[in-house]
């Protein structure tokens, strides 16, 4: 689009930047607007768009909002702890099962039993590990980097 005698009309991007308030209203592109009805009309439309798209005013939700946030945080943490405790218990049970099951139907000999007792200590260790905090981060839905 070009209007004779008033220079090149503004591109859509230039108009958007003016409507968005990201371009200097005294820039050369803006100077063109004074003499071009087409560009001026387009700019008005874009400004209306920006005005229509404004979100409604909302009141400060108050202290109840903070309390709700903390309830959610604490509930999520509790769920995570339960989940991790269950996972640790199940892992321990699985290890115990593998260790104690006799291979090929034969009864475990004495040496095996002693080794198994050693492994029991690891099972105990896994059960008692306070790994909740360390694993919290792994349970998050995905990294949020800032």
């Amino acid at each position: 689009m070009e209007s004779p005698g008033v220079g090149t009309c503004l591109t859509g991007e230039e108009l958007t930047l003016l409507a968005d308030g990201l371009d200097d209203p005294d820039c050369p592109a803006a100077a063109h607007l004074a003499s071009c009805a087409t560009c001026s009309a387009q700019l008005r439309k874009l400004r209306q768009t920006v005005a229509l798209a404004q979100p409604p005013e909302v009141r400060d939700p108050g202290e109840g909002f903070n309390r709700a946030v903390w309830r959610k945080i604490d509930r999520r943490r509790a769920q995570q702890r339960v989940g991790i405790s269950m996972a640790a218990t199940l892992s321990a049970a699985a290890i115990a099962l593998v260790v104690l099951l006799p291979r090929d139907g034969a009864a475990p000999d004495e040496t095996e039993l002693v080794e198994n007792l050693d492994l029991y200590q690891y099972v105990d260790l896994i059960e008692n590990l306070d790994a909740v905090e360390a694993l919290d981060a792994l349970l998050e839905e995905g990294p949020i980097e800032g």
Partner: protein
Amino acid sequence: MRLPPGIEDSTDDAALIDMARRGSRSAFDAFVTRHRARIVRLACGMVADEEDAVELAQEAFMKAYNSLGRFRGDCSPRTWLDRITVNLCVDWQRRQRIRRALFLVPRREGEEGWSPEESAVEDSWRSDPLRVADSARIRSVVCRVLASLSDKQRMAFVLRHQEGLDTAALASALQCAEGTAKVHLHRATERMRKALAPFMAPED
């Protein structure tokens, strides 16, 4: 707005986040207090219902709290929180779309796959000033258009028009060059203009 004991009005966001990372719930509470109205408004700009917006804003703070350990300070805590909120709203909109699809509700204007320019313009909207004044309907169209934008376009539009970020801050939030941020903003605004055309006052 009352701040928790030990936290000054002048304590900046970065300091609050740093204290929260070291275990101070009061510091995070102050951060919530400072930003809650803004975040509810931001969510309100993306989902039409205010109750949903409040719920999403609370989730955004919860997610921020659970992610404190991974906040690297590459952007301001405010921008980081905005990004979390926008992403949550986008996920929520996606879930809503799936729910609607499961119940075979027809696709509506502004949704993915819907083209504002190809859609038939509802003539009644042009001529009926009472309906033009129906901000709830406009809100709904705005939300659906936002949902149909790419993530970067949506962020650009929301952060510029609802949060008032300037070009540099916008580029930082979008993690791109300023020129690219402007292109995202232009495309988003253009889509919005086309979708909102039926609601605009006619030219004299």
